[in-house]
């Protein structure tokens, strides 16, 4: 039998053995038996010494070809069996991925805080400073400096908790306006502040009244601030909070500390202005009070109203949240029922 034939025989036998090996151990055995240093192929190669110089390269090349072929077959079979083992193991490890994950305790911000934070961020982007005024304020700052002298009928609009004759729980975050005005150095640029916080009114708690609630007050004073600027600012707020299709309309109103004074209505976010129960079929929802800072307020803070002017606006996050989420009882915000608090997922 020629060496070539012997090689062909070894190849065919080897391939058959590899194919029939059904566990990794057997494949390894075939490899050792066939390709090992004492194996038949090595032996064939050793027999090449007896060949003529012409034949030697031919047989050598053929022997390499056979060895490569066997090696490849072994590798392939090896991989196949290895994969089968892994597959079997993976199959055994399969989980019900629909079982719930292990809970990680996670709290969330109060819905009122969410609204205040959103507005703070919006106004900081427009260059406003955030100011946290005191909750216990002097009558003088809460009322008189805002053009609400004692015995002014507009004081009826805000029934007040007094601590003493002259000290009270602030009824409005605008109580901070006079302090902001008198503390600001106008040589350093315009005054732009946003004052969010708790306010208090002498009201009996029911579904729509709370003796404690929140307000956000904005104030801008500079040499040339216009009512058009107020309208533009409020429109931007509405569109940022609700979307581009939202509009703002102004209506005359009265606040002692602004002149002209307006109420600002925003396109109803429930019906997009078509009219619904929330907006009483008007398509508009009243969300803000605003106006141009009253000259007396500026004067009382030592600012010349002939030179400086500005606008102020105020809104109630509680009312806002009630409208936005359909909350029907304001007391929900302060009773802290976890079933209530957990409903308002923080965005982003």
């Amino acid at each position, binding site marked *: 039998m020629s060496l070539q034939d012997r090689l062909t025989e070894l190849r065919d036998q080897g391939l058959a053995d590899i194919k029939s090996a059904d566990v990794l151990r057997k494949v390894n055995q075939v490899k050792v038996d066939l390709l090992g240093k004492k194996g038949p192929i090595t032996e064939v190669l050793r027999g090449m010494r007896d060949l003529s110089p012409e034949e030697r390269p031919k047989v050598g090349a053929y022997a390499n070809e056979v060895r490569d072929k066997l090696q490849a077959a072994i590798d392939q079979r090896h991989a196949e069996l290895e994969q089968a083992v892994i597959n079997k193991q993976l199959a055994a490890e399969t989980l019900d991925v629909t079982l719930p994950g292990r809970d990680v305790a996670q709290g969330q911000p109060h819905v009122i805080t969410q609204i205040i934070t959103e507005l703070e961020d919006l106004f900081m982007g427009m260059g406003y400073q955030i100011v946290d005024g005191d909750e216990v304020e002097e009558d003088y700052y809460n009322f008189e400096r805002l053009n609400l002298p004692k015995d002014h*009928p507009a004081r009826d609009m805000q029934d007040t908790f007094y601590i003493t004759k002259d000290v009270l729980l602030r009824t409005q975050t605008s109580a901070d306006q006079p302090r902001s005005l008198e503390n600001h150095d106008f040589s350093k640029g315009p005054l732009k502040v946003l004052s969010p916080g708790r306010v208090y009114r002498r009201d009996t708690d029911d579904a729509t009244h709370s003796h404690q609630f929140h307000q956000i007050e904005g104030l801008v004073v500079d040499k040339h601030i216009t009512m058009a*600027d107020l309208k533009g600012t409020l429109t931007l707020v509405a569109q940022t909070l609700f979307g581009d299709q939202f509009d703002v309309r102004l209506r005359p109103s009265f606040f002692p500390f602004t002149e002209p004074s307006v109420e600002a209505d925003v396109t109803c976010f429930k019906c997009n202005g078509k009219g619904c129960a929330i907006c009483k079929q008007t398509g508009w929802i009243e969300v803000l009070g605003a106006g141009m800072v009253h000259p007396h307020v500026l004067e009382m803070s030592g600012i010349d109203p002939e030179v400086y002017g500005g606008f102020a606006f105020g809104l109630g996050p509680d009312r806002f949240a009630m409208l936005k989420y359909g909350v029907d009882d304001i007391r929900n915000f302060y009773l802290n029922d976890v079933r209530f608090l957990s409903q308002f997922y923080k965005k982003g």
Partner: protein
Amino acid sequence: MRISTTWLRDYLKLDIPADELAEKIERTAVEVDGVIRPSEGLKKVVVGHVLECEPHPDSDHLHVCQVDVGEEEPLQIVCGAPNVAAGENVIVALPNSWIGDHTKIKKGKMRGIVSFGMLCALDELGFDEKLVPKEVADGIFILPADAVPGEPVFSYIGMDDEIIDLSITPNRGDMLSMNGTAHELAAIYDQKPTMPTVDLQESATDVAEDDLTVQVDADETDVPTYKMRLIKNVTVKPSPLWLQVRIWNAGMRPINNVVDATNYVLMQYGQPLHAFDYDQLTAGKINVRLAKEGEHLTTLDGEDRELLPTDLLICSDDQPICLAGAMGGLDTEVTDKTTTIALEGAVFDAVRIRKAAHNHDLHSEASMRYERGIDHGMTGTALDAAAAMIAELGDGTVAKGMAVGRDEDVQPVTVAITLSRINHVLGTELTNETVADIFKRLDFPTVVADDTFTVTVPSRRWDIHLPADLIEEVARLYGYDNLPATLPTGQPTIGKLNETQQVIRNSRKLMESAGLTQAISYSLTTAEKAHAFALHASELTNLDFPMSSERTALRLSLVSGLLDDLAYNNARKEHNVALYEEGRVFYSQPEEVRPVEVEHIAGAITGSMVKKSWGVAEQPVDFYQIKGIVASYLKSLALAEEVRYVANSDHAEMHPGRTANIYVGDQLVGFVGEVHPTTAKAYKVRETYVFELDLTALIALPKARQQYQPISKFPSMTRDVAMLIDDNVTNATIVALINQKGGAHLQDVQLFDVYNGSHVPDGKKSLAYTLTYQNQDATLVDEEVTQAFDKVLTALTDELGAEIR
């Protein structure tokens, strides 16, 4: 203020639907509460003429009537009203008609006799009982003789009117009158209003001053104008129906011709008037003054009132007869028997009337107007109008002239403003013509010179006295919709949170990441709860006049409110609750007028913070869980000084053995622990762990300087030690000793086991620590570490009596 659109059409040509009119008013002047249509929902209610009226055979009060309702055959209707009679015109609710309160009327039987419908009283048509004239309150309403049977009844009694209910802001008192509202609408619609004229016939012989003298002792600011007219030979009787209709559609009850005339003129001109029975005024001498201590007056409502020195009084021969601007006295009330009327037209100070109305709880149409101010220039005209009307309705005569106590010389206000100022404030580019046209529509005489408008504001618009007020007039009549929308220009500013605000925001996020949900509780609570859990003792900040005993004082801690929140949840079967709050507590400062407001952050956990699930058991919260939350939070603040937890049993509301005060360096910044079981019971909460931290103090404390520490290239080595030690030796003591004796290379001491179960002798516990050694500059040698470690073991044994295991 209820504005009848029917009445309004006496002034203006308005062929505009009421809803549109209301919308226009709302967009240009004042808020509108709604449009009232009295006949809304009512159907098949017609005029009927009672042809026959016989007693019901089986009843002692019912009548069987044959009523002509404009059909071929009369209807038989059974009626129980005492005043039903043949020959009268009445209100008939036909079979299948709808009357007030969404009630449907059907054919029916009353005591065996068929009744085709019902004869109605006013309140059955939905009239507010307070508006129904007293004389018709007990029976059906009798329509005028010329009413046509079968016609809908609404036009006869003013129910076809559309009434716009205005919600008038304090500045627009001028619109608390038909005249004022008409002026406003005239400006809006650019019309010339037809204002009412006064046709006063004075007696040639009787002179008011002969029978009546008036003296005003009060200050000119309190009573700028006080004058009276006398109307003689008056017959007091019910007003004609047209007047009653106007009165009730304005929301008032018709009383009699004299009172109705004064109310009519009040609605028309906004000028309160008061009619006295002249014959009850002794000596015909009226004086106006402030009340004296101890004086009394019985007012029209029969109340005996003790007067206050701030009350303005009308007196007859110095005896109080009327609380000025608020309510008249009973003794001088106009009655059926009155024949001579002394009619007051006056201006009183807004603050005086406001106080009197408040102090005596007397809020009337008159006081409301005085409080907001009235047109000082119109008092005389209104007085004349009312006198003329009383004379006409009561067949009397008006005495010549007035008895005048004081008569203010009212001058119009002049306000100047430039066009450039208007455009500067509004951000508009209005022209002279546009602005001049607005002032013309307002009927404000205006002189224009270059770009300056000199505007003469009539006394009827007493709210206008500043240039800013004129700008508002221009803005609202030009239309807010027409304003451009821009953003402020000028020097840019940077908006960013200050350090405190930044820390507060981060603190909220950290608490939420630790599993606590934000609560916002009430700052006002009971005195007891306000004191509870206070970090530092303080007097309370108490309300002067609390509304309820539940809310009397400002809190000194947040934990107290959080426990209320937990109780609320527990009561609703929510037993796993983890809340935190960030907010202020209020320390009273005896030497200051206001308390100091300190930012705190506090948390309360109860039940389990881990939800029970497959493979996860609920883990009841404990001291070490809340301490872990506090510790990791404090770590995030990067405080320069060490945080220490010191056992404390002084907090009355806290568990004495499970509470630690928290110090940073030597400063007390808060506490953490379990709520005392007794306190928990009082608050109605279960086992609860809380912490409270003074955030203001934490923010002020020095922060660790952030500096990079090179990471050692050399490996670290560890040694474990387990020991038996007396129960009363604390972890803090052991760690301190280990650190003290640990040597230069000791990097870290980590507690990894605590055991005091059955295998440990009584009074002992087993603790185990891992000590980590590392050298920054060289590889540690085993012997070095062993030597250092042995020193620690010796110290533990010698100094703390530990038994190394």
